[in-house]
């Protein structure tokens, strides 16, 4: 087959939004897929651990409604990668419910495929026993049985294979659990017989929306076209344009290495790629090399609850106090510890963040402090919420009233912007699993279902 395969990426994250006109400009081309990434680990472990999203249902529905109402009547498959933010079961179900809601509002039916990416604790235990698990980088500790037992939500990043299978089955909407970000895009090209190196490289670019254009943004649409030995990318918004440098530079983004990318079952080598402008704003890329790995590894992600947090935000304007801030904070911490001497110190931690001074870099800040005001955030993380809040209240009242040496402002040390001052944050999570697992067979289960408006039920 010698046809060009075109993929429209509406935005870099489902629920981030995009100008509808950009999307409509993409529909002027003959499209083979509308693909959107919906997940990331960037926002930390909380989404995966707590089973929640970081975009609102309202925003996801708004984006998806545009995609479904344009794609379904034109028979263009629609693929959602890493549904719901982390691609675990609860995230996928949340997304499916939104799709059903849209389909019934549009009075449409669709063949929906779901590709699950969850792994049970038993499956991970077994893989560990068989020596199929290893840390992803040197600073990640080896996986222990205790870590597996305390991690309730574990997913793996799928490759293109199960998505291609869903396309072969004639799916109109494919909802993927956790996927390697480029995989859902690569699946379209590979399904149509295109080179996997080009398909994945294009996927790596498209998954971020228009971030590879100038000015770059994740909140706009982009078009990718795969030919025989190259692919092209172009902005769908006349206010942005792609250049060879902007597209080449995009491979840097969020990746550990500028031109070597490790995906499920392969390495992508982009060192010898060529980036050329074929017509104004259209960049052609060639030379992307797909190197199949000897063993098929997928990346596992798991998050577990480690503590509960209560925190306070306050401002300090008093120059005398600012001059001895760390000293006062040390005193406040030790006072609270002394007051709760019956509670083991390992049950909780007290931390101060001095914004305006070294809030971002902490002990690694090298700039000398200059300023007349500091924003202080202090937190207590503890075994239970009750303990965190109790200790935080003591820290707050001690800090507020402590009569440090040389104090003139004897009425109070902190300016709270809000009442109440203490904010219960809830559980705190950590990435407890971030390891590679060798797969021996296809572990991502596909479920075929019909979604949407039911004529017989409506009658």
């Amino acid at each position, binding site marked *: 087959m010698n046809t060009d395969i075109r993929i429209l990426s509406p935005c870099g994250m489902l629920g981030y939004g995009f100008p509808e006109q950009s999307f409509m400009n993409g529909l002027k081309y003959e499209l083979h897929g509308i693909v959107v990434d919906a997940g990331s680990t*960037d926002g930390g472990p909380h989404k995966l651990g707590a089973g929640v999203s970081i975009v609102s249902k309202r925003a996801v529905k708004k984006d998806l409604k545009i995609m479904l109402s344009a794609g379904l009547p034109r028979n263009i498959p629609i693929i959602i990668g890493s549904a719901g933010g982390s691609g675990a079961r609860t995230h996928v179900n949340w997304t499916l419910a939104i799709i059903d809601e849209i389909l019934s509002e549009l009075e449409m039916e669709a063949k929906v495929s779901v590709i699950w990416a969850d792994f049970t604790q038993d499956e991970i235990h077994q893989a560990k026993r068989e020596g199929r698990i290893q840390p992803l980088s040197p600073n990640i500790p080896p996986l222990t049985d205790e870590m597996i037992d305390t991690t309730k939500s574990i997913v793996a990043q799928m490759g293109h294979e199960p998505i291609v299978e869903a396309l072969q089955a004639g799916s109109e909407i494919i909802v993927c659990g956790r996927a390697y970000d480029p995989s859902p895009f690569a699946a379209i090209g590979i399904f149509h017989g295109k080179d996997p190196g080009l398909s994945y490289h294009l996927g790596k670019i498209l998954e971020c929306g228009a971030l590879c254009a100038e000015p770059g943004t994740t909140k706009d649409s982009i078009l990718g076209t795969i030919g025989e030995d190259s692919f092209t990318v172009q902005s769908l918004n006349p206010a942005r344009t792609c250049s060879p440098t902007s597209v*080449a530079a995009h491979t840097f983004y969020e990746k*550990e290495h500028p031109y070597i990318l490790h995906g499920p079952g392969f390495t992508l080598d982009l060192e010898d790629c060529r980036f050329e402008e074929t017509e104004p704003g259209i960049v052609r890329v060639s030379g992307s090399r797909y190197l199949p790995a000897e063993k098929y590894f997928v990346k596992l992600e798991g998050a577990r609850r480690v503590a509960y947090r209560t925190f306070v935000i306050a401002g300090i304007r008093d120059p005398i106090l600012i001059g001895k801030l760390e000293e006062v904070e040390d005193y406040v911490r030790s006072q609270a510890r002394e007051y709760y001497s019956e509670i083991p110190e390992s049950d909780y931690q007290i931390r101060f963040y001095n914004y305006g001074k070294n809030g971002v*870099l902490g002990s*690694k800040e090298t700039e000398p402090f200059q300023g007349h005001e500091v924003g202080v955030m202090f937190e207590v993380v503890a075994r239970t919420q009750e303990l965190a809040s109790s200790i935080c209240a003591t820290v707050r009242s001690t800090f507020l009233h402590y009569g440090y040496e040389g104090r003139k402002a004897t009425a109070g040390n902190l300016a709270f912007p809000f009442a109440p001052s203490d904010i219960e944050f809830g559980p705190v999570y950590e990435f407890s699993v971030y390891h590679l697992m060798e797969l021996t067979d296809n572990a991502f289960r596909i479920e075929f279902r019909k979604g949407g408006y039911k004529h017989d039920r409506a009658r």
Partner: protein
Amino acid sequence: MTVLGDVAKVLRSKNSGPFEITLDVLFDSKDDYDRVKQSGCITKRTICDLYRVKEEQIHHLVFFDQALGFKVTISRDISSGSVGDRDVYGAQQHAPLMKLAIHQSEEE
């Protein structure tokens, strides 16, 4: 004296996964890129001093000519969003690199 923040077009930091921070420095022109690359100022040593990390914490330091940029990936002390982390997305860890002085290369 020229500092990196004045020459670079893009100078940013971001997580590359929850256990690493990656620093990207990209340039407008091949001249600027070559000047910085050939200055010899971008070394593991300089990054260690700027970020107060040990050499084994630098996972990659790579120049990519086609993109007119270089990348440095370092391990995080605390993984993204865990207790004690100060920058969940790792998006504000680039600032120390902006002040890095770029000297003339000795060959020039």
